């Protein structure tokens, strides 16, 4: 599997490569999410790097303090709500396309992760959850001894 590597001087090429890579594993049937699969809110993308697993969700207009993230055994649950805020005030609407309300989604994660070693960041409407690999799941170098 190709590792995405971005060139700093070429944001356009990086974005094109990213779009191709994301399309390639769209709803990858080899990855089992458990009961709340595709269609549940929020939509998620799952990645890995040398450190562990990275789960990214698009959650625009959400107060980061109101997002609940729980990890229990191998299940990650994201829940919270998106209030209408001042978009709910009076006046006449020409367009009303955005959705508001509550959400809760639980996804099953693969084995070999260190659930105690996780962090989450919310920036520009995107939630990024990183969960480190368990030490025993990391590749280990074995020294070869001469006889």
């Amino acid at each position: 599997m190709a590792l995405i590597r971005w060139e700093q001087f070429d944001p356009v090429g990086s974005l094109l490569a990213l779009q191709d890579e994301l399309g390639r594993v769209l709803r990858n049937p080899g990855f089992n999410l458990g009961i709340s699969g595709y269609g549940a809110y929020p939509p998620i993308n799952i990645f890995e790097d040398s450190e562990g697993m990275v789960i990214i969700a698009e959650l625009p207009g959400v107060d980061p303090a109101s997002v609940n993230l729980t990890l229990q055994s191998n299940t990650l649950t994201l829940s919270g709500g998106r209030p209408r805020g001042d978009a709910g005030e009076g006046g006449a609407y020409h367009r009303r396309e955005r959705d508001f309300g509550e959400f809760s989604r639980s996804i099953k994660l693969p084995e070999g992760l260190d659930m105690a070693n996780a962090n989450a960041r919310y920036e520009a409407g995107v939630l990024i959850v990183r969960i480190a690999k368990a030490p025993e799941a990391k590749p280990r170098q074995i020294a070869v001894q001469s006889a």
Partner: protein
Amino acid sequence: MTPEPELATREKQEVQGTEKTRPGRYFVPNVDIREDENGLKLWADMPGVSEKDVEVSLKDGVLTLIGAVSPAPYDKLTPLYTEYNVGNYFRQFELNEVIDEAQIKARMRNGVLEVELPKRAQARPRRIEVSAG
């Protein structure tokens, strides 16, 4: 108080028709537009776009919104499973109202672009006092 509805996932819609100079996918941001006597207010969902990468312009009565998404958070990541693609955002609206261009305000908050488009003073309804006698 009515209970909050449950959020449902909507598939992102790609921009059709107009061609951009920058290649790649462009998505249509979901918007709300509200009008009152003072002007229009618009909200556009653009997750992944920060305030420095958004462009709002009004020319010949056409409002253009462009949001450039940064691929930086995906550096060195290998995707395993995806449900959505990422891309820039683009949308245009023809405005019928007379907008005071100098007074347009825009800000980005948690991936949502908010644009305030105040009407020109002469386009606002004015109450005319009726005097007796």
